[in-house]
């Protein structure tokens, strides 16, 4: 009975792993990885919602009546590309931080900031 919800649990677990990485790790690149895992979990969530039992991909063809819901696909398709763009932006910031501080660990950056003040 409850097993019908397992896709959401997968999503939740993935999401929490990403969340944990973002919170607990000090390394900025690692944080971005965590963020992208989080992102992926959201994608999976949407796509699994779009799924219908016995349906196929939403490309019209003869002799097929049941299609998956195309709307989440569209949303996620664009979200993936936007996700990579934002990830690239984050990485660019990381590179700049590395150049400015010589480190991408959160606590070391903070230490240097404290020294500066």
């Amino acid at each position, binding site marked *: 009975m409850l097993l019908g919800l397992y896709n959401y649990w997968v999503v939740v677990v993935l999401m929490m792993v990403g969340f944990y990485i973002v919170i607990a790790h000090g390394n900025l690149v690692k944080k971005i990885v965590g963020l992208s895992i989080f992102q992926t979990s959201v994608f999976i969530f949407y796509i699994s919602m779009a799924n219908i039992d016995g349906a*196929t*991909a939403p*490309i019209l*063809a003869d002799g097929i009546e049941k299609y998956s819901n195309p709307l989440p696909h569209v949303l996620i398709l664009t979200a993936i590309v936007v996700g990579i763009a934002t990830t690239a932006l984050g990485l660019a910031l990381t590179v700049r931080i590395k150049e400015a501080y010589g480190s991408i660990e959160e606590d070391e950056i903070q230490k240097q900031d404290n020294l500066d003040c």
Partner: protein
Amino acid sequence: MLIAATLAILAVMMMAISRAIMGPTTYDRVLAVNMFGTKTVLLISLLGFVMGRPEFLDIAIVYALINFISVIGVLRYSNRFVIKHSEQSKK
């Protein structure tokens, strides 16, 4: 038969994953990733047949290409990096 092949490929994928997790060196991981990519291509083409809509082989083509590109990328950047790394640790 299609389903049997799919299951076999899934099993192999699990093996590749475990190698990539354990993999003592970077190259082991790259190898596992490469293998995983090839198996993904196969899996997608098989799945197309299992689900009865084999028109979508384009994805498999993309995977084959992207897999190649990412392996080359890994080698190109990790390789140089490793060299630099070892220089540093010598100093």
